[in-house]
């Protein structure tokens, strides 16, 4: 039997402009506790698509949610003021959360952007490479730092970026959602670095296209659970990041997937 943490469940934080904030917070807390109790990993994105949302660290603090060691991963991108950015890292460490996914992220006019001089370096534009370097320098040994890999980008460019991220000290890689399979996965696994494969759990593939920036249109209707099964069969050594998981219909079948019965 695979260990439960094989699944890292993405839980989207409430957007700042949500009509009923208290109801949205309750839903967030319920999903969080449900995933935590089941022993899965929890991943909380940071302002996805540049939409203003609450950061995972303030949600955990404000809602007094438990932060079980090794089970929670917070995303952190470059669209923060320096004081907020540093404060998020400090508070994440204070909560005992030891996993951060450093990403460049999606910006918007409403979000500030870290500058090189904020981090004490001479670069114009800060990317996840500089985030990893900063975290390694300022919080040595505190966090396991992951980075993203987008197989939909031109391979040479993306690979060069990945090498810089790993050289900066990244310890694991989370892919963008994989549909069925992708030739880059074998190359990633050959690196000998932990790879977390993202599985897109929504049937709405146009949202995925928005996320990765490229049109993704499979030939047959998309079956998210079938896709996850296929990926787990092909890459049993990997953990899986479940994006947009349905808590009512999909969450209950996850134990079955882990028990291999669904993989045969």
């Amino acid at each position, binding site marked *: 039997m695979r260990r439960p943490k094989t699944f890292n469940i993405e839980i989207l934080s409430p957007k*700042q*402009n949500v009509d009923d*904030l*208290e109801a949205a917070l309750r839903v967030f807390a319920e999903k969080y506790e449900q995933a935590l109790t089941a022993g899965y990993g929890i991943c909380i994105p940071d302002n996805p698509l540049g939409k*203003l949302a*609450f950061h995972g660290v*303030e*949600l955990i603090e*404000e809602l007094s949610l438990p932060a079980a060691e090794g089970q929670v991963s917070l995303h952190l991108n470059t669209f*923060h*003021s320096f004081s*907020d950015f540093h404060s998020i890292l400090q508070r994440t460490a204070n909560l005992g959360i030891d996993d951060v996914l450093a990403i460049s992220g999606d910006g918007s*006019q*409403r*979000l*500030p952007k870290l500058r090189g001089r904020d981090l004490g370096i001479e670069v114009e534009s800060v990317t996840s490479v500089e985030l990893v370097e900063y975290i390694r320098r300022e919080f040595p040994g505190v966090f396991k730092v992951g980075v993203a890999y987008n197989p939909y980008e031109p391979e040479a460019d993306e690979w060069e970026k990945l090498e810089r991220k790993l050289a900066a000290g990244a310890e694991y890689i989370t892919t963008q959602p994989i549909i069925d399979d992708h030739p880059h996965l074998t190359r990633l696994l050959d690196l000998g670095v932990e790879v977390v494969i993202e599985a897109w759990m929504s049937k709405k593939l146009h949202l995925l296209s928005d996320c990765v920036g490229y049109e993704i249109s499979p030939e047959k209707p998309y079956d998210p659970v079938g896709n996850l099964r296929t990926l787990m069969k092909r890459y049993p050594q990997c953990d899986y990041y479940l994006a947009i998981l349905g808590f009512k219909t999909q969450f209950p079948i996850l134990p079955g997937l882990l028990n291999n019965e669904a993989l045969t």
Partner: protein
Amino acid sequence: MNIVVCVKQVPLVGEVSIDPDTKRLRREGVESGMNPFDLYAVEEGLRIRERIGGRVTVMSMGPGSAEKTIREALAMGADHGILLSDPAFAGSDTWATSYILTKAIRRFGQVDLVLCGKQAVDGDTAQVGPGIAAHLDWPHVACVFEAVNCDNSRILVKRMQETGHSEVELQLPALLTVVKDLNQPRVPTLKRCRAARAAQLEIWSSRELATTEGGIGLAGSPTRVVTTAPPPPRSGRTVCLAGTAQESARALLQELRMRSMI
């Protein structure tokens, strides 16, 4: 220092439709939020308060739903919110709106500084801020992109001009309209958002403001919109940057900077 920031709820979409009969924007069913320029005015008010002390009060004229915009400002850190709302205010043009806001500022009492966004992105007139200053007979500066210095009696600012900028010192009380280069508005925290949503707002109607019937709504609005038409669509174009990768990257950077995109 008593600072009042005037904010407006606007549609947050790229395309809005116009009612052919009233020639006004259709706002129903459209996601709305604080006018982007007003965010910078709120932020500057908060920064001045943090430097020299005082209170920041946010005012907005609009329907009940504009309360959400005031709460956005409270979530950023404003101390107090006042909604100016009355069916009689409907249809007010920039002159009538600035009159209503002026009445509210006078009713509020001691005010040292009024901050407004340069313009609202729905009407794009840039008239309300200067209109308030005219009604109050206060000095004002439009398009402020830097507040150099401020104490309880004067403020030194830089204003944007077509060919460069100028530095202006004003005796307080005064009014400023601000542009986006002024600062980077802070992102509200969850704790503040929750407090802002629970905060009590004051609601002032025409009765509290003692506005004259002929000064508000359509009756108080000399502006007549004769016709409206969408602007011609922008044509996209592809630019090929020649040279080595380094040269074209430099050219691209220059181009993006010239367009104020980075």
